[in-house]
């Protein structure tokens, strides 16, 4: 089953067309990394999935549900980690989790998310206001909110930024566990280490479109040969620029 299907999506901010026909598919159980320099449209694509930007053209399906036609139903399958600066500073971590759980129409706050909060050593911050949190602590809350409700598609934008190594490892393990349970992860990142060690597939975005995709076999080959993914991506980036 496709956890995410993006077909020829175009989006613009005013006159500037940021996405110029992006297409990608992420199957259930896959960790998909979206790479690319700043300003090429990675976050815009994620914002389209969250409903913050309305595409001018194209189709997006989350867990086979068309986002434009049944936004409410499609969003029930979506776990989106917002940017840390979009968290409400005057709410406590506990209130954020409660509000998000109700907004996702859950009967309870997941035990798995509470266990994850414990593992990330976040529970001591639960009753403090978000505006007193450090970047790393905010990042943990963003991730916890995204994981609420067993979403079939987990969308993360630079979610490892600001996390300490132990928390980053805990999050990677949790994402792997969710992948085994059938969820899919879409991660926009600059961290090539994650692509090299954890991703099933990856794509490079340049100028508002996907210019190269690495399939599972390609990534496995790079890993087996002990190859340098950084060199591979730089080479593809240069080709993309020249094209």
């Amino acid at each position: 089953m496709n956890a995410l299907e993006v077909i020829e999506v175009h989006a613009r901010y005013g006159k500037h067309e940021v996405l110029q026909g992006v297409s990608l598919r992420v199957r259930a159980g896959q960790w998909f990394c979206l790479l690319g320099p700043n300003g090429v449209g990675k976050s815009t694509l994620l914002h389209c999935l969250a409903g913050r930007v309305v595409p001018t053209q194209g189709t997006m399906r989350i867990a086979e549900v068309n986002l434009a036609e049944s936004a409410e139903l499609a969003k029930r399958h979506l776990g989106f980690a917002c940017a840390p600066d979009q968290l409400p500073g005057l709410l406590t971590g506990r209130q954020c989790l409660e509000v998000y759980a109700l907004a996702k129409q859950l009967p309870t706050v997941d035990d798995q998310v509470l266990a994850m909060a414990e593992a990330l050593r976040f529970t001591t911050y639960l009753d403090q206001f978000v505006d007193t949190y450090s970047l790393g602590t905010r990042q943990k809350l963003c991730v916890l909110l995204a994981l609420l409700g067993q979403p079939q598609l987990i969308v993360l934008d630079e979610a490892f930024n600001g996390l300490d190594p132990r928390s980053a490892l805990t999050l990677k393990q949790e994402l792997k566990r969710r992948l085994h349970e059938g969820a899919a992860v879409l991660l926009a990142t600059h961290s090539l280490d994650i692509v090299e060690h954890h991703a099933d597939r990856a794509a490079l975005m340049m100028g508002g479109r996907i210019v190269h995709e690495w399939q599972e076999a390609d990534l496995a080959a790079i890993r087996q040969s002990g190859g340098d993914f950084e060199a591979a991506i730089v080479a593809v980036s240069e080709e993309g620029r020249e094209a």
Partner: protein
Amino acid sequence: MATPISPRAFSILSALRIAVDLVLLVAALTAALLAFGLTNDLPVQILWTAAGGVALGVFAGAAIGSIWPLKREAKRSEESRFVRKARARAMKPSLAGLSHWPIAKAIAWHRPEHSRVLFILAALSVPMGASALLGIAILAVWTLASYLLAIVRAVPVVAREASVWLRPTALPFGSFARSIGIRALLHQACGTALLGSVFVLLGAHVGDVFYFSSLWLGITAMIGIIAIRQSYLSLPSFGRMLFSVLVVLITESRVRGFGLPLAVVVTGFHLRSVRERT
């Protein structure tokens, strides 16, 4: 410190900046006091004694304030410093946090570094020779009016921030609007009732107070609903709010008593149209 300024030079600069602020504050208060006293034929000696008292109070208060809050509040950032925390309890899905948010915003805006300006203005607006009761009533009017205006402003700000934060979820408009709007409207209604009571105590006619209170509540509810609706639909709200308020006020100024029903109609229209769009 990441700049090539020595800590000593930085401390001196900070002290100078604070001292200049304090001197300007004392000078402004003294000038206002002298201007008022001299035009009302008060003895100069009393005025200078009062000015000296003001200066002493400002500098002593600044000295105490520079030590005390740093020790107590070092761990808490500015915005949430005076916001009351919800009682910790077992976690369960709830929109209570969302409904507290506009109130928290209004309280955060009223933290001392902002509201001290309000209190200076309020204190200066108390007429010389007024009774203690009148003085307290005037201070209460300023405080309540400021709080009510802060809530009016907080609803659109919170609606915009909350809509961005909750956009990836499937929260329906009804729940979104209720949770942001109802508690703010309740505070608005209680505050307006209190303010009206103060005006009645000051001698205003009960009928007039009731009429203006109702009109105020109608307009604030209309502003709130427009802001919440527009934010939920990711549309700009300021122009629409301004236009609606102007239309209501112009209608009211032409035909007394028509403003409130018009505000109710505009509110209903916005509630209905969002249901159609979603």
